[in-house]
């Protein structure tokens, strides 16, 4: 069964609904009680009236009958007096008396003389005297039953000629011999009873609805209706119920009323004849009587309910109006317009208090928002200053990737990533002149440093340190001197005891001799022939703490292609979400597993794994990486006749120009002919574009390794990328030579050109990398 649920859109509706429901209940109870009361009252009143009327009727009947009795007894007395004198009935005297009586008393129909030896007969209304014959005698006898009585009596009623009659029998002599005693029988017509009843029971105008139609006169002795009620069957059944004693033994005095479920029955007896006179009011009639009053009650109650509902609705509307106003003001406020007008507080009740607190809340909110705006503006200003500071700091260190032309005997790649917007890490590299002994010219100085802490304060010390290093370093300086001088300067006015760890190294580019010293900084890694090891050094104390600090120098020899990696503890102390540190061990492992063959590769590899390790955790310290590769022979290693030039190309098309230019320079130095150079450049462009567009799908994240090997006969270029597996030999169909196919992918024509220009093109997918090898024949100069 589905549960009925409905909610009210308004308090008014809810109020009205509940009031109506409650009212229905309450009024229902009242109605029921009123109905009971009405019923009782009506019954009582009805009984009262009925009883009074019946009594009147009975008395009237009684009176009439008694009048007749009295008249008769007067007559009999007269006759008896005469009889005593003459010991016989004087018929002549008697008959006129009878005649007179007949004429006087209208109800008397006939008077008969019975049991009189010679004059039995009867007088009727017309004055005719009829002598009894056998038959009539018998009739009269059966009617009178004089044998049973000793003195005067009323007989039972009997019907005759459309009306009822009753006979009053009177003995005429004092003779107690019942057989021979003459009787006088007076036949009385009972047709005057009904009109009498009607008259007596007539209602006044107000009571015209009184159902007194069921009046009756009943003779229980012979079960005869003298006045029949309209619903005789009902009354008969009523009377025959157990409660009613219908035999003549009950001689009750007064009016009796019986009420039962069928209605009210009021009866009384006429003593002389033992008749039952009564009124029956069936319950149906009672209800009919009550009905109009009940309707009146219902109408009145409904009117009450209605007016109450109206009043409640009105009052509730009045009360709710300020609430509604408040609601609309609030909605407007919610839209963002805090300057709406709140409704006036007119009363001190809950609604008024609510309005009051709302007003307060609105004001507070406005205040809060304006405060917030001010704070945000200040914060934004601060942030913009910070970003400017970050920009300035970035310019303090040399550019991260030196676009070294291939003639420089080294390649550098560097990365500086502050943990906050500005940081305390620093690196630097610059050329020095020969040292004091004049033994080495062309020296390159490498610096890496880390200020204690991070953020703004560290950034300020970083700026100071890096400037001091540049300023105080002379062209002849050696690492220990540099560190010593800078330390002196930093120790002055350093009450805060801020310090900075610095590593300083100088490479003699001619000989490959690497001299270095450290002030509290970790030693760098040396990657040689795919072996990784730490450089040995004795580190001094950090700069800025002790004026008298001395920094011990160490040195080693660098071979060609050696890679030196300088880093700060932002790498080794990078923490992941479990609190683990990246650690030197992991750094070494990574460098061993993925030995980089150029500085850019080195930086990229370390950053990749560090990022992977840290995951989503925030960067805990500034990160700095500085990688240098020693290439004393430039791009060429003429000893082996192989030029290995590894460049890492960002998969951005904008770098293409740079690459091709470098290639041009390289090939020119190798004294290749122009045509070959042009072909090679074209090949490189087409392949790189292919890789970027197909393998990396134009994302700027991938990188491509290009290795160029050249010997006397052949120029071999190997392209390695870690993009989608893509074999251009298989997946690029040769173009159609239909000029309308300009929608064809670049690779269509491009790769075709490559194939045509190159002697040999090979592809293999190995270790997750696409490896494409292109070989061009070098025309031999004769």
């Amino acid at each position, binding site marked *: 069964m589905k549960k009925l649920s409905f909610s009210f859109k308004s308090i008014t509706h809810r109020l009205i609904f509940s009031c109506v429901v409650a009212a229905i209940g309450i009024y229902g109870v009242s109605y029921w009680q009123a109905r009971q009361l009405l019923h009782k009252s009506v019954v009582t009143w009805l009984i009262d009236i009925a009883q009074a009327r019946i009594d009147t009727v009975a008395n009237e009947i009684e009176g009439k009958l008694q009048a007749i009795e009295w008249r008769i007894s007067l007559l009999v007395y007269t006759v008896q007096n005469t009889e005593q004198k003459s010991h016989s009935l004087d018929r002549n005297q008697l008959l006129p008396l009878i005649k007179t009586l007949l004429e006087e008393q209208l109800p008397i129909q006939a008077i008969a003389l019975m049991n009189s030896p010679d004059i039995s007969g009867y007088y009727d209304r017309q004055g005719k005297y009829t002598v009894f014959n056998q038959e009539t005698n018998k009739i009269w006898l059966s009617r009178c039953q004089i044998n049973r009585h000793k003195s005067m009596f009323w007989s039972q009623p009997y019907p005759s000629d459309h009306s009822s009659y009753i006979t009053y029998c009177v003995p005429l002599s004092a003779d107690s011999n019942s057989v021979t005693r003459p009787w006088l029988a007076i036949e009385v017509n009972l047709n005057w009873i009904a009109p009498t009843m009607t008259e007596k029971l007539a209602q006044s105008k107000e009571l015209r609805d009184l159902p007194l139609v069921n009046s009756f006169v009943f003779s229980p002795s012979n079960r005869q209706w003298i006045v029949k009620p309209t619903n005789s069957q009902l009354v008969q059944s009523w009377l025959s119920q157990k409660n009613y004693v219908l035999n003549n033994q009950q001689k009750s005095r007064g009016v009796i009323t019986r009420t039962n479920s069928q209605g009210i029955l009021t009866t009384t007896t006429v003593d002389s004849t033992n008749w039952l006179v009564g009124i029956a009011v069936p319950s149906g009639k009672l209800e009919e009587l009550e009905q109009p009053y009940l309707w009146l009650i219902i109408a009145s109650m409904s009117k009450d309910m209605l007016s109450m509902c109206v009043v409640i609705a009105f009052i509730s509307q009045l009360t709710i109006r300020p609430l509604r106003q408040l609601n609309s003001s609030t909605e407007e406020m919610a839209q963002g317009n805090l300057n709406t007008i709140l409704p006036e507080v007119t009363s001190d009740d809950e609604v008024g208090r609510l309005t009051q607190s709302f007003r307060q809340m609105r004001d507070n909110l406005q205040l809060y928002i304006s405060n917030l705006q001010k704070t945000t503006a200040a914060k934004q200003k601060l942030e913009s200053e910070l970003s400017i500071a970050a920009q300035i700091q970035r310019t303090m260190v040399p550019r991260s990737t030196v676009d070294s032309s291939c003639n420089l005997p080294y390649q550098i790649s560097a990365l500086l990533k502050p943990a906050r917007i500005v940081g305390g890490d620093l690196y630097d590299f610059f050329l020095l002149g020969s040292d004091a002994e004049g033994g080495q010219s062309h020296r390159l100085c490498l610096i890496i440093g880390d200020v204690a802490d991070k953020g703004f304060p560290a950034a300020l010390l970083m700026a100071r340190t890096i400037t001091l290093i540049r300023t105080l370093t002379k062209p002849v300086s050696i690492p220990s001197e540099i560190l010593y001088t800078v330390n002196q300067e930093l120790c002055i006015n350093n009450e805060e005891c801020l310090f900075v760890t610095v590593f300083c190294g100088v490479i003699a580019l001619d000989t490959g001799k690497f001299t270095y010293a450290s002030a509290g900084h970790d030693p760098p890694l040396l990657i040689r022939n795919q072996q990784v090891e730490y450089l040995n050094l004795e580190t001094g104390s950090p700069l800025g703490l002790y004026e008298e600090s001395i920094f011990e120098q160490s040195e080693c020899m660098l071979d060609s292609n050696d890679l030196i990696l300088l880093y700060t503890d932002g790498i080794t102390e990078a923490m992941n979400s479990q609190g683990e540190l990246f650690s030197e061990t992991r750094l070494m492992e990574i460098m061993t597993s993925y030995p980089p063959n150029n500085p850019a590769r080195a930086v990229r590899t370390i950053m990749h794994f560090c990022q992977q390790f840290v995951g989503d955790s925030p960067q805990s310290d500034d990160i700095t990486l500085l990688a240098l590769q020693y290439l004393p022979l430039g791009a060429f290693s003429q000893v082996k006749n192989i030029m290995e030039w590894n460049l890492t190309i960002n998969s951005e*098309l*904008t770098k*293409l*120009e740079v690459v*091709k230019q470098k290639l041009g320079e390289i090939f020119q130095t190798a004294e290749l002919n122009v*045509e070959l150079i*042009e072909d090679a*450049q*074209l090949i490189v*462009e*087409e392949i790189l*574009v292919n890789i970027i567009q197909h393998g990396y799908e134009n994302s700027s994240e991938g990188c491509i390794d290009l290795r160029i090997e050249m010997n006397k006969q052949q120029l071999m270029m190997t392209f390695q990328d870690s993009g989608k597996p893509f074999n251009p030999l298989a997946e690029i169909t040769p*173009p159609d*030579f239909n*000029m*309308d*196919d*300009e929608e064809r992918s*670049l690779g*269509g*024509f*491009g790769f*075709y*050109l490559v194939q*045509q*220009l190159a002697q040999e093109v090979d592809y293999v997918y190995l270790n997750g990398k696409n490896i494409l090898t292109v070989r061009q024949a070098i025309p031999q100069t004769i």
Partner: protein
Amino acid sequence: MALQIHVENTNSSTLCLALNGRLDTSTANDLEQSIHSNLTLNTQTLILNLQNLNFISSAGLRVFAKARKTMTSKNGKLYFTNLTPQVKKVFDIVKAVPMTEVFANTQELDKYLEAMQADIECLT
């Protein structure tokens, strides 16, 4: 700029562009835009003077192909003159352009055009 484009207009129905430098992936877009903006409704003939164009790659070929298509749709013509060796080599490999539309130098082209014009006049 790696590619420079000079506009040399001989008459209102002929557009002549001289290309200097290299036509590759990074410069191809420039040429395409230049052609697009310089072509007018009247232009019936587009001449590309490649005298100083040192280098071309497949990106450049694509631009040429587009230009040729545009001209064809206007019932016009596209001619190339003064090809440098590298460009010629590429054209040969790819067979990008019918040889009738390539001329060694400007004079040959002019002669050809005059002949064409004469033919048309003859017909009318």
